[in-house]
Every structure is written in structure tokens, then in C-alpha cells.
């Protein structure tokens, strides 16, 4: 066994696990399934001796792999062969843990923000999550979600427009919070 390769493989697992696990949970909501999928993804990479140095966008590569692995498992689980039908099972949900609050007073603010986010159409939600929470580029998101570059852009922009309309008052509340509750 190649020690260096094993070490690299392990550190990639440790570094990306949290991001992958959170994303997996968000898109399918099944913790056990996500755990199995991550394990399988990394096992396959090890077995196929994937040369990580040739992977340009490692994070996007892993997200794409996990998403496909989850789709495959769902296919088996629900016994569906049509991929577009399985896609419908994927729907990213934002949860309260995504938005850190410092005290109870902000609970209301958080629930309004989550409500606005979760009211967006599923594709917009997923694109916004990958763009702003995982900080991936449009072309990387296109790879992961298996849609073209322009649709990613459209999804992100439409989502932001909707958020702007529903959030402007909240932004002012935040401003208020910053100025008067700083210490």
C-alpha cells in the first residue's frame, strides 16, 4: 500500500466530511443513507486509485460524486429507473443550524430568513446553498447539479431577487442589531 496516497486520501476525507455530510443531509434527509454514500464514494476513489492531483476542483468533484451516489441509492430504494423521477426526491432544505444566532432575540429573525430561503423553488435553493454556503463557482455548481452554466446563473439570480423582496425589512432589523447590540 502506498502510504502517501493513503494519507492524502484520509486527509481529504477529514477535511471535506462536514461539508459533504451537511449537503447530503440537506438534499435527502436520510442520515444513514448519506453515511453509506460518503463511505462508498471514498472507498471507490481509493479502489480506483483516483489521482487527486489531476482533479481540478476537488470539492466540486466530491459533491458531484456524492450527489450521484445518493441518486443511485434512492433509485434502488424506491425502485425507480427513471433518473428525472428520482431527481424529484432531491430537495434541499435549509435548517436552523445553518444560521448562527447569538441570543434568543434573534430567533424570530432566523426563522424569517429560513422561511424565505425554504420558500424558494428546489433548484434555486440548491444553487444558492452551493453558491453562498459552500462558496462554489457557477461552473462547479453546473457540474454538480448536472445542469448548464446559464441555468445555474438564472437559478441563483432569480432566487436572490425573490429574497431581496422578502428580506429587505429583515436586513434593516439586522442593521439595527449591529448598531445597538454590538457589545
Amino acid at each position, binding site marked *: 500500500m502506498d502510504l502517501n496516497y493513503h494519507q492524502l486520501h484520509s486527509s481529504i*476525507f477529514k477535511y471535506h466530511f*462536514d461539508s459533504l455530510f451537511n449537503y447530503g443531509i440537506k438534499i435527502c434527509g436520510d442520515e444513514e443513507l448519506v453515511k453509506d454514500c460518503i463511505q462508498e464514494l471514498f472507498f471507490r476513489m481509493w479502489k480506483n486509485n483516483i489521482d487527486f492531483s489531476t482533479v481540478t476542483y476537488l470539492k466540486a468533484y466530491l459533491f458531484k460524486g456524492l450527489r450521484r451516489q445518493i441518486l443511485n441509492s434512492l433509485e434502488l430504494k424506491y425502485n425507480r429507473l427513471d433518473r428525472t423521477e428520482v431527481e424529484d426526491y432531491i430537495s434541499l432544505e435549509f435548517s436552523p443550524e445553518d*444560521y448562527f444566532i447569538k441570543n434568543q432575540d434573534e430567533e424570530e429573525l432566523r426563522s424569517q430568513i429560513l422561511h424565505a430561503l425554504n420558500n424558494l423553488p428546489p433548484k434555486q435553493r440548491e444553487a444558492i446553498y452551493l453558491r453562498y454556503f459552500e462558496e462554489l463557482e457557477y461552473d462547479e455548481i453546473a457540474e454538480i447539479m448536472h445542469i448548464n452554466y446559464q441555468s445555474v446563473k438564472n437559478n441563483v439570480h432569480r432566487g436572490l431577487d425573490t429574497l431581496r423582496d422578502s428580506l429587505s425589512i429583515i436586513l434593516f432589523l439586522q442593521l439595527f442589531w449591529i448598531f445597538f447590540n454590538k457589545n
Partner: protein
Amino acid sequence: MNTKNYLLDEFILNESFQRFVLNKSAEDVVYWESWIANNPDSSETVTNAHEIITFIASRKVLPKNQLISEQVYERLQRQIHAEMAYATKQSRKINIHYYWYAASIIILIGLAFFYKHYFPSQSELSGQYLEVTVLKGQRSQLLLPDGTQVWLNSGSIFKYPVNFLKQGRNVYIEGEAFFNVTHKKNNLPFIVHLKEKLSIKVLGTEFNVKSYAEDKIIETTLVKGQIKLIKEDASNKIISELNIKPNEKAIYQKRNKQIIITSLISVKEDKIRSTHSANIEASKADIKEIDDVEIITSWKNEELVFQDETFEDIGVKMERWFGLKITITDENLKKERFTGKFANKETIYQILDIFNRSEPIQYNSKNKEIIISKKSKKH
């Protein structure tokens, strides 16, 4: 340059602006800094948008799943191990040996990594000090709980404990400050802590302190009363204690850790003049003090005063005063000495134009940087 008037949420949603605030792209930083310089009307909106983005960015969290991560990792290693045992039966023992060796190292690395991630340091959690930061280009004034007045000059950080009155009056300064300390009946000392294990002990008095991290010296000037300049060694043992009298200035040189005390001579000058002295070279090595207390403390009255200072030192002073970057390209110009007083909130350009009257200089400015050179002679 785009001079469109943005609304608050347009700034917030602008990705280029977000990258500028979070300092993610040099290109965007350059673009927005010059945009802001050219659109002073928008500065309030920009400041608000800046705060909101920073706030939101600090609120974004990725939940940590350490236990699940370890559990899946272990399962993965078992699976890999089983696969290996199956694939390479012949060299199995050696492989396993190396595997466990590697695994234990990886686990150690992993533990260190997780530890750093999950347990923030103690200092982040303690909120025992109140800190005041004065940005370059600004000056500030504050009143401490005991009635002591503090003036803070540009680019200074001032810290004092929350329970200020209970356990000694200890304050910390990096930068320049002027103190008017109130005398306490119970003789509770007021101690100003500086860098390099220096501190100033006072009972009730007025004095100025200048201790910028980037300066070669730390200095304090007493206006009235009495102060003690205390120097400690690495183990916090007092190694020297110097009494400073009014109109005296103590200078500590970081280079050789020497303290010099000089008496101040009063010099009154109102107009700017350049000293065309031939011995600039000779005098630059030692520190000559011909400034008086009024000049040293003039900054607290919003007066910018230079007293026989080199243009290089004046450049540093103006950088702080105006919050700009100043670069002087001419080596001879750096050594020229000037005296002058600006008490009417002159702009940097007005000041440079006045300098220009006694010494032909030219300057270019872009993105909060001013480059000053000698005017090329065209005769």
C-alpha cells in the same frame, strides 16, 4: 468609472462588492476602494452595507459532525482494510503493520485538527477588557470611569478592564495618547502599560504618550505633576524606575533599550520654513529635541504641527493623521527638515501646496496613496 447611485441592498447583493468586503479578490478591492474614493456621497451606505455583509458572513456556520465523521472514517478504513487483505494475501502482515502505523499518525493529525476546530482559545471568550480603536485619519476622546480624560491620536488602540475601579487603574495603549488623570483620594495608582515591558505610574497629572508599534522609539512627555517610567525585565521584575519632571520628555529606544531624558526648550514658530542647513547628515544620527510641550500635545486640539522634523517623519505623521499611504520617492527630500503648524483642518493637498512654496515638490494621488517627489527643474 461607474458613478451610479447604489441602494443599500444593491451593494449587499453585488458579488463584486461582497468579494471586496470579505477581501477575496485584489481586483475587486482595488475597484471598490477607488469607487468609494470617487463617490463620497455613498460613504454612509457603503459603511452600512459593509457591516451587514461582515455580520452575515460571521453568522454562516457549517455544523460540525465530529462523531459521525469518526464513525464513517472507521467504517471506511475497515472496508479498505478488508479489501486490502483480500487483494494482497502474500504481503499481508507487512501491509497491516504499515497500515496501523500510518493510521495512528493520521489519527493524531486528525485529533490535532479537530481540537483546533472545536475548542476556540480562551482569549476569544474572555470579555474582560473594553477596547477602543481609533482608525488612521481619525482622533478620539474618552472619559474613564474615574473621571480621567484620554485623547487618542490616529491609529491607536486603547484598552482598559471592565472592573477598572476595583483593582488598580490599569490601561493599555498602542499609539499616541494624552492623559489628564484625576487624583484619587485613596491613592489608587493609575498605570499606563506600553510595549517592551514599559509602564508609566501616575497619581494625578497630565502627560502625553507616543508608542506606535512601527516606530523605533517610545516616548512620554510630562506637562504637569509627576510620573514614573518603569521598565521591567522578561520576568516582570522592575529593573529601572525613572522620575520624570514637568517639561521633560523620556525617550526609549527599542534598538538598544536605552532611555534618554531631555528637557524641552520652548520654541514658537507659526510659519513654515525649510532649514537649509548643511549639517543634516551630521545631525540625523542623534535625537535633538527642540520641541516644547505645546507642540507635542497639539494634536489633541486638532493641530498638526511639525517642529524641525525630517520630511520622512512628517510623511509618517501625515499618513496617520489623514489615514493615507504616503510614499516619498526622493532620498534627499526625505532628509530635508521643516517646521510648520496647521490648525485650520487643512486638507493634505493644501498642506502639500504650502510645502511646495518652500521646497519644489510634486505629488500624484490614487487609491488613498500619495506619491511625493521633487519637482524636476526645468530652466
